[in-house]
């Protein structure tokens, strides 16, 4: 990759972007121009958020020193993030700069109807990676779970940020937004504002709006059937374009990656048809799973803890929903990049897909064992199909017997007529 860029100097115009999902392709088709624009934006942001060069250069080392993350660790991580973002290697130093700027970008984190699982995933780590540390050290102006002010003060911080950093601050929303009863199922803060009101206010002037976790993206568990609070995802209540980063909880890498990309380009990454960044959510788990070979070989775990489970066989028959789920758990792993469900020996539950609580259940049985949604029918497709086939068989047998008896009677009649 590095060499490519050097040889590119002569005939760059003929070169086409190497990746279909190159997230930066919206900027320019000419790679040199892309780099120039990104550098210009980074320079501008650095001037804005740092007083002098010393502060700029000491910012990240100061933060990482506390957690014992060495410079080398950070370089490895920025290389990792560059490749995860499907960017060329030449972007690595720029990603490091963007991460630096990210720690100073004004930031509002709203909690709606949810379990704060995403917050927990980020702030409670034994060995946090740079991604989690950066999330912790972003200049959080408003985040209920970690901010010092309370009550009216906290509210004031939020409104102040909305006014002062209009069009610049990052808005991250976690949790579904109840819309039933004018949103009164969820009231937050000293004034008792409804969640839907706060979200609308805050999203209006945000530089970038991110829905983090399945609840914020698609409604998630609060919106599971029968959804009494009429909870919906963020994109349903605001007319701003929302970047969905679903999963339960969302992977910090995906969040930081999206934010870093925003810092680099000032734009949202390329999204798929349900609002997820393509660089993270374009791969199907089933296709990238390290147990796929066992799937193809017909080697399946049949019971929890059986011999197949010990040999890490495929979890398809234990209800793995990997074939229906798009995410990058298998490559950018969870828990400080150490594991993901299938590696831990449990099937995927499809948490990065819309309505997963209704569509992916039962979680520990194959999809074929799910109940079909036909009113008045409480059965799996196979049970109902067998019942219908049985009914058809009974009908056929009844018709055959009826035909036989009737025919016999008629031949009797006609033969008795003949005898007459």
């Amino acid at each position: 990759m590095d060499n490519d860029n050097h040889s590119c100097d002569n005939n760059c115009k003929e070169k086409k972007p190497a990746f279909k999902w190159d997230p930066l392709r919206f900027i320019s088709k000419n790679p040199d121009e892309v780099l120039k624009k990104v550098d210009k934006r980074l320079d501008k942001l650095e001037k804005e958020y740092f007083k002098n060069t010393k502060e700029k250069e000491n910012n990240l080392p100061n933060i990482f020193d506390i957690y014992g993350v060495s410079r080398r660790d950070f370089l490895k991580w920025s290389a990792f993030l560059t490749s995860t973002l499907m960017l060329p290697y030449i972007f690595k130093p720029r990603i490091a700069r963007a991460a630096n700027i990210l720690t100073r970008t004004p930031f509002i984190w709203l909690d709606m109807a949810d379990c704060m699982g995403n917050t927990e995933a980020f702030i409670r780590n034994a060995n946090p990676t740079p991604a989690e540390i950066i999330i912790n050290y972003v200049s959080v102006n408003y985040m209920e779970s970690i901010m010092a002010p309370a009550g009216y003060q906290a509210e004031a911080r939020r409104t102040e940020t909305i006014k002062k950093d209009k069009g610049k601050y990052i808005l991250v929303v976690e949790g579904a937004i109840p819309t039933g009863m004018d949103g009164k199922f969820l009231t937050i803060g000293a004034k008792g504002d409804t969640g839907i009101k706060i979200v609308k206010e805050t999203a209006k002037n945000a530089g970038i709006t991110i829905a983090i976790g399945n609840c914020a993206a698609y409604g998630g568990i609060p919106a599971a059937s029968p959804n009494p609070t009429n909870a919906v995802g963020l994109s349903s209540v605001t007319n701003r374009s929302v970047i969905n980063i679903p999963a339960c909880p969302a992977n910090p890498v995906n969040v930081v990656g999206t934010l870093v990309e925003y810092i680099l380009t000032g734009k949202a990454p390329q999204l798929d048809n349900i609002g997820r960044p393509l660089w993270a959510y374009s791969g199907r788990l089933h296709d990238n799973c390290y147990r796929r070979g066992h799937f193809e070989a017909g080697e399946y775990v049949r019971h929890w803890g059986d011999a197949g489970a010990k040999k890490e066989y495929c979890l398809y028959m234990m209800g793995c929903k990997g074939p229906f789920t798009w995410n990058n758990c298998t490559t950018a792993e969870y828990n400080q990049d150490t594991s993901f469900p299938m590696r831990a020996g449990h099937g995927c539950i499809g948490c990065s897909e819309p309505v997963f609580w209704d569509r992916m259940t039962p979680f520990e049985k194959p999809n074929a064992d799910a109940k079909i949604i036909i009113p008045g029918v409480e059965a799996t497709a196979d049970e109902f199909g067998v019942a219908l086939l049985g009914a058809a068989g009974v009908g056929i047998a009844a018709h055959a017997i009826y035909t036989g008896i009737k025919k016999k009677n008629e031949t009797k009649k006609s033969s008795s007529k003949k005898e007459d």
Partner: protein
Amino acid sequence: MENKENINKYGEINLVHRMTVIKRIIHWTFFLAIINNIITGFYIAYPFLFFGKTPTQSDSLSTGIVNSGETNQAFIMTWMRDFHFIGAVLIDVIFIVWLYLAFFSWKEPLYKSFLPFGDKLEEAWKMIKHYFTLKDKPKTGRYQDPLNAFVFTIFHLLILLQMLTGFQMYVASFTGTSAVGAWWPWLMHFSTDWTLFIFGGLTGVTIAHLFIMWLIIIFIAYHIYIEVWRSVMWKEGDILIPFGGYKYIRNKSETQ
């Protein structure tokens, strides 16, 4: 002398051409492809490990024979999926040919006996009545009877649904492009993405695919029964149509 007696007893016997060679080939290819896809489809939905290797079966002689040994020698699911796709391709081609022949066949276009035209509705109703009263057998004509035409059309619509839901599941493993170009996954997305909204996501599409298979199995049971029943009751050799292409027309019926 003997012939005349027969004519008195069974009526005059004439031949009618019903299925051309192409149609007979289509019929039996369809049959094989559907049976193949039902078996392999069952395996894909719920791997019955009779052939496959399970931790407890791997050392057993009887079931280990089919595939024993290392993982790289087994690949039973790959084969099942492969054969399922091959059967699906056959079904797709046959469906398109059927659609063409339904309108442009020289011998017997399906639309000629299809319901909305003429007094076909009444004829179909007469056939249903005949099934249950065994009286007033509708006259055998040059084209197939409207009731069968209607049932076959329903069956082909089920096949079409299977094709569309199947393509939706197939395109799930594509990542925006393919060996033949980006148009191919685009085409599949374009033509089948609506199934996601109708059936509720990819899991719903899968279950719909499974359930429609049961409807097709029910059709097969009905189809075989009714053709055997006709052969027995009408004595016009209906069961011979997919083999020889001909059936008989008699101007006399026991049930008249």
